[in-house]
């Protein structure tokens, strides 16, 4: 059947965030009845492109065309009405309602003033039968598996008459059998002349399901090729394909004696992380690499006492060390720089001074009253030492740039004088200049003999700063690599080991 026409076209889409060019004149097109895979490393701009299409972000320049007509959506609702649906990684469903309520929410079939349950059941079954989906329309969403929820979302998209369906990492938590089922459903959608944009890190699946593949890197369109012309190696090369330049300070740190030993650590609650064993030496920077959702954050949160540890041992200087709460951890010489700076890093409504001393208040307290002289002295020291660009230490932290906010948080932890720094995405959302300063600071910490664990989704950064890299894959350790001997290709392959 050769009715292929262009369903969606994106022309020279650009989008900048402060300090970052997230999309740089990206072109993309989707044909009727085909699956177009969109691949790239974390931060390559795939999600940003989709968010622009969906009306969640506004593009700075460029144009989206649907069936040849220019569109620009202000809200996701408009996008849905124009036949675009997104099956999210985090599904947007009403868990307390039933499957069919979710599908028909906002447009219930009615009989007089009541909802016509019979019609609703019948219509839901019709769609499910059509797509070979086997879910009870009257089951509650809260009682469904992830895969079933996803099927419901896809059925909802189909019921809305969507012609363009975006699937963002649809298989990330599915079993092999469930993936097969998903692919059969995708096949059905193709027969109906729908176009599917398929975002995934799983390159073998892409070879199976996709018709075309577009590779993105650093916000740029790198290539679009038919899947028949590609192999996994070719895709990885194009995804990575970047030279390490002088973006990193010279490494001068010397790795010393073992400092921290983690032995078969296991977390009690979801998301489960098991069997984590590694060691960290004084003066060493240990990188943790992995795809999003590979549960890197959970490990450092477990070490810091934010998450409950159910089994395993942590030895500090050879002695057992139990961090039951963050307070324990701080007094045991740990520091955690959190991943979501805005959410659990800064106190946006407080000034720089308060943000700096918050983890170290007991030191500045005398009979319950704060000692302002000591506070002023230490705060000024942090601002000078880390070259925080601010008019005063009384400035609200939310008025600083991301890089300067991050320096303030680093300063907070320098004052507690830790031996072990747990850094979760320390350079996320920071412009290039400030990144260099953060790298320098990390290296200085290592030079002073501290142990540093650094989680990052930017591989060049890990290769440029870390001594060793522990690669996580789907909640398990996939392996350790020496940064001097490894390559991005090897890390990417390890990261996909258990997915």
């Amino acid at each position, binding site marked *: 059947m050769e009715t292929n026409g262009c369903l969606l076209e994106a022309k020279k889409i650009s989008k900048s965030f402060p300090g970052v060019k997230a999309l740089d004149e990206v072109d993309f097109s989707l044909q009727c009845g085909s699956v177009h895979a969109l691949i790239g490393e974390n931060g390559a701009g795939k999600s940003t492109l989709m968010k622009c299409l969906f009306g969640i972000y506004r593009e700075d320049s460029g144009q989206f065309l649907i069936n040849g007509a220019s569109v620009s959506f202000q809200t*996701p*609702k408009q996008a*849905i*009405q124009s036949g675009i649906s997104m099956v999210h990684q985090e599904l*947007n*469903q*009403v*868990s*307390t*309602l039933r499957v069919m*309520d*979710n599908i028909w*929410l*906002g*447009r*219930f079939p*009615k009989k007089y*003033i*009541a*909802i016509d349950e019979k019609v609703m059941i019948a219509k839901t079954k019709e769609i499910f039968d059509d797509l070979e989906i086997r879910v009870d329309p009257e089951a509650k969403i809260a009682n469904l598996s992830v895969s079933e929820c996803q099927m419901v979302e896809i059925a909802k998209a189909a019921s809305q008459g969507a012609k363009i369906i975006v699937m963002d990492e649809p298989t990330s938590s599915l079993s092999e059998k469930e993936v097969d089922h998903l692919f059969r459903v995708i096949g059905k959608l193709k027969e109906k002349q729908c176009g599917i944009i398929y975002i995934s890190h799983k390159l073998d699946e892409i070879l199976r399901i996709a018709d075309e593949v577009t590779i993105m890197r650093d916000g740029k369109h790198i290539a679009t090729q038919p899947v028949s012309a590609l192999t996994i190696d070719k895709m990885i090369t194009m995804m990575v394909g970047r030279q390490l330049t002088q973006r990193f300070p010279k490494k001068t740190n010397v790795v010393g004696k073992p400092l921290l030993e983690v032995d078969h650590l296991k977390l*009690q*609650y*979801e998301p489960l992380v098991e069997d984590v064993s590694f060691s960290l030496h004084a003066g060493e920077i240990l990188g943790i690499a992995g795809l999003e959702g590979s549960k890197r954050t959970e490990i450092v*949160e477990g070490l810091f006492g*934010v*998450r*409950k540890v159910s089994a395993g041992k942590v030895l500090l200087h050879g002695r057992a060390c139990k961090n039951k709460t963050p307070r324990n951890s701080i007094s045991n010489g740990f520091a955690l720089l959190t991943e979501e700076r805005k959410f659990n890093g800064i106190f946006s409504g407080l000034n720089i001074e308060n943000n700096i001393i918050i983890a170290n208040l007991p030191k500045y307290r005398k009979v319950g009253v704060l000692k302002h002289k000591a506070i002023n002295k230490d705060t000024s020291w942090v601002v000078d030492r880390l070259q925080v660009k601010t008019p005063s230490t009384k400035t609200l932290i939310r008025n600083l740039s991301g890089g300067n906010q991050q320096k303030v948080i680093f300063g907070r932890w320098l004052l507690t004088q830790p031996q072990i720094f747990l850094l979760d995405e320390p350079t996320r959302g920071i412009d290039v200049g400030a990144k260099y300063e953060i790298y320098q600071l990390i290296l200085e910490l290592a030079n002073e003999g501290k142990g540093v664990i650094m989680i990052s989704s930017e591989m060049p950064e890990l290769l440029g700063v870390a001594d060793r890299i522990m690669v996580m894959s789907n909640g398990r350790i996939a392996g350790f690599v020496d940064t001097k001997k490894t390559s991005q290709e090897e890390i990417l392959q390890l990261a996909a080991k258990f997915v």
Partner: protein
Amino acid sequence: MKSIILRKRSITKAACMKWALNNAIYIVLAALIIVITLVDSSFLSFKNFWFIITQASTRIILALGVAGIIVLGGADLSIGRMIGLAGVISASLLQSLENPNIIFPGLDLPVLIPVLLVILVCGVFSLVSGIVVAKMHVTAFIATLGMQLILYGVASTYFEKIGNASPIGGLKTSFTRFAQGGIDLGFFTLPYLILYVILVVAIMWFIWNKMALGRNMFAIGTNVEAAQVSGVNISRTIILIYIIAGLLYGFAGALEVGRTGSATNNLGNGYELDAIAACVVGGVSLMGGVGSIVGIVTGVIIFQVINYGLVYISVSPYMLYIIKGAIVILAVAIDAQKYVQKK
């Protein structure tokens, strides 16, 4: 097939706990009745049962009104003052013509007109609260806290200027019969109050379970974004739920006056706490998105069993406050266990 068999066999401790948590209110109700009956076996009688139900009736209507707002994730602090306003207006318009202190001499209205009027008045005030919440994005707590003051001011002004600041009593017999009367079935009299409650419960059950409005209400309470993306009209739903609540408060206010025989501007003071507490005990989650009509009715009845039953076995009324307070806190604590994110 296999998995179903396996599931049945595994009645674990955790499953029992979960069942107990989910059915906590019925367990509490049963326990209360058993304890009270053990102390005084005469408690278990048909007469007492009707007494409790009748006493609970206006409270059930109030609780059903506020429950929708709680399901949306809010709360309504203006209930008591709604009752007060509905009370003074309906009482002033329905005094007996023989009353020497009659406010509007010669005014002879059929009961239904003032009752419908106060229902409408409360509906309009609640509509305003709804607009403030839905369109001006004021939290329900503040919107209704402010509304409570406004209502008290309005009711008090009316009470002072029109009613000369003395309790408005001497009501028409047709009005007191409207609230206190019943249908004589020979062996016992079925109070009208019960009929009103059954009617309100039926209507509310229909709205919550059969109409798009109810489904949208739960959707908004659970996940506003999902509801929005699905094309639910968020502010319209919120405003409608507030209007329905207001209508019910007005009706309950008129019944309360008819039941007690007089009204002042302070009538209904504090009723909001009883209504919200009953909802919470009845399993309506303050986090929004969860609740059932049957649960709410049970919640109100539990409170009434405590009120009536414990007094019946001569527990001191001050002790009652302590017990009620503890039960409310316990109910919310049990509810919170279901939502706490374990880390």
